[in-house]
């Protein structure tokens, strides 16, 4: 049973905007992921987004690509990602977890098996970058069977007609891709984001998370004003990778990631406190 609807609804009622950090499972090592996720929650994360390592992450920019490569080099797969979630759930039954990945690892294990494995591990939602509405039906059926949300992406190029189709099938929340481009790219046009979100809201009451291009407390705060949640991916993956590469021990690497999420949390709270 997905935790997303209840958690996001209670956040909305309390006026709190969700902070959603993204990390790649097994990056830089498998042993680090569970304590890192715990520290991110302690620093103000409301939902966790966990990347499933894939050999060909076509929508990722160089930063997250490298995260996938490090995780694969350490042997992390979809199966071991689910083992990581199972471990995390021993100590945390509250925070929703969304897996973000690509279709082929799901296809390889089979949609029905994956849905069951995700439910058993305590996953709440799935984002599959290369399963647009046209290709998602079989997967969606299996996810609905086990009450896991399928999170759809909407982008600046999505037509109004497509927004209607997508929101009709969506549950959990909508993930708005703020930029044409790969993760970690370029400059965010917050005015454009705001106008797109109001168009999407004409079709759905689901919470809308915004990702791609959020780097720090300021951008997060600006985006949080018009959205329900902000996703921080490349900036977090990057600072963790830098800390690990500089030879810091695990606790300090985790501390660096947690500090960024604290800053994002403060930026979001500051920007949205008068709303």
């Amino acid at each position: 049973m997905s935790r997303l609807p209840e958690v996001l609804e209670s956040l909305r009622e309390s006026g709190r905007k969700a902070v959603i950090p993204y990390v790649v499972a097994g990056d830089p090592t498998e042993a680090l992921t569970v304590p890192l996720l715990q520290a991110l929650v302690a620093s103000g994360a409301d939902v966790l987004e966990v990347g499933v390592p894939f050999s060909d992450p076509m929508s990722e920019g160089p930063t997250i690509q490298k995260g996938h490569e490090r995780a694969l080099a350490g042997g992390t797969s979809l199966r071991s990602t689910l083992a990581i979630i199972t471990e995390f759930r021993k100590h945390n039954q509250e925070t929703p977890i969304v897996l973000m990945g690509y279709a082929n690892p799901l296809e390889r294990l089979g949609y029905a098996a994956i849905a069951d494995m995700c439910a058993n591990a305590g996953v709440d939602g799935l984002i599959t970058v290369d399963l647009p509405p046209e290709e998602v039906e079989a997967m969606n059926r299996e996810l609905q069977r086990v009450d896991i949300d399928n999170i759809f992406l909407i982008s600046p190029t999505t037509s109004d007609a497509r927004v209607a189709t997508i929101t009709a099938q969506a549950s959990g929340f909508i993930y708005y891709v703020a930029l044409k481009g790969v993760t970690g790219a370029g400059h965010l046009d917050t005015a454009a984001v705001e106008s797109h979100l109001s168009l999407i809201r004409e079709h759905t009451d689901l919470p809308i998370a915004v990702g791609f291009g959020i780097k720090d407390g300021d951008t997060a705060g600006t985006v949080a004003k018009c959205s329900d949640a902000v996703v921080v991916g490349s900036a977090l993956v990057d600072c963790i990778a830098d800390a690990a590469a500089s030879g810091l021990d695990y606790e300090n690497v985790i501390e660096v990631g947690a500090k960024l999420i604290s800053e994002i949390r403060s930026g979001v709270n500051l920007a949205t406190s008068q709303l």
Partner: protein
Amino acid sequence: MSVEMSPNKYAQVPDEHGRFGVYGGKFVAETLMSALSELEALYRSLKDDAAFQAEFDADLAHYVGRPSPLYEAARWSDMIGGGRIFLKREDLNHTGAHKVNNTIGQALLAKHMGKKRVIAETGAGQHGVASATVAARLGLECHVFMGEEDVKRQALNVYRMKLLGAEVIPVTSGSKTLKDAMNEALRDWVTYVDNTFYIIGTVAGPHPYPMLVRDFQSVIGREARAQSLAMTGKLPDALVACVGGGSNAIGLFHPFLADETVAMYGVEAGGKGVDTGEHAAPLSAGIPGVLHGNRTYLMQDENGQIMHTHSVSAGLDYPGVGPEHSWLKDIGRVNYVSATDTEALAAFHRVTRVEGIMPALETAHALAYAEKLAATMTPDQHIIINLSGRGDKDILTVASIDGIELGIE
């Protein structure tokens, strides 16, 4: 025997969702969906448009030099002793391979869409050269993504692209070959989708690419069919073509699919041997999955990670294959076989010496299998091999394998 084409199931694919049976489809990020729909709508409106077809045909005739000859390789056939072998001479096209048939077609689409910037992925560099060529002719900005590994082994084609005004971007992620070049091209497209046309070089990728590339390349098979009838009074008994992504093979095969008497062989890169794991033969040893926008046979591990491939030929060094080939394999219409690096190199040397035709290393895989096939046939039977490209680009690779120092890097 009837030699007329009739309406058939092979003309019904892909369906409206871009599927060939369970294969194909549109497995891409949401950002690209509108661009694909726009391309599909444009192509559907133009494919039966007389003016568009006339423009395409005129370019093929006057710029590419079509029709390409069908040549009987009599001396080679005699040496093998068996069926007669004919070569469909795509190596004589402008730029030296079949790739240009498709880039001409897609460049016309780009022109109709008003796109000023084109991108392409390339393995051996033939598609990159063919893309850079049409871009030069139409005055379009051209960026070609090429794996760093391939940039090294296809240095001549890299320089050709630069001379044509294209920017060649070495791709350093993953296995640094064709699959990674395609990832990077997709990343570029998602970023610059508003002003950019992505010229995909093979019958893979998301719908409508497998369909439109097949349609543009089918000129090969249409000509070969007519030429076979004119030269021998009958259809060929067998067709042989190499298969990486599979565009030259589909181009030859497609117009013959309804001709039940014509056997077809798609030859994949066996690398060091299909049983060694070091190859690029997904139809021979792969499992269906999703990569680069379509569902198809893939070389992948038990976790669904795409495996590194190996082939002496950069153009075949790809872990996937066009979805229509996956369908043709499953329904049993085409036989998919393989030839190793060693067999391909031997065929490269033999055909060069016996016929004075130096084939691309990709093509040499088809030649290697055709030798075995011809030996089992009788003199009243004949094979058409798609001589898909010329081998000039490969001479450094061949020299290095033969231990010869040419003094150029």
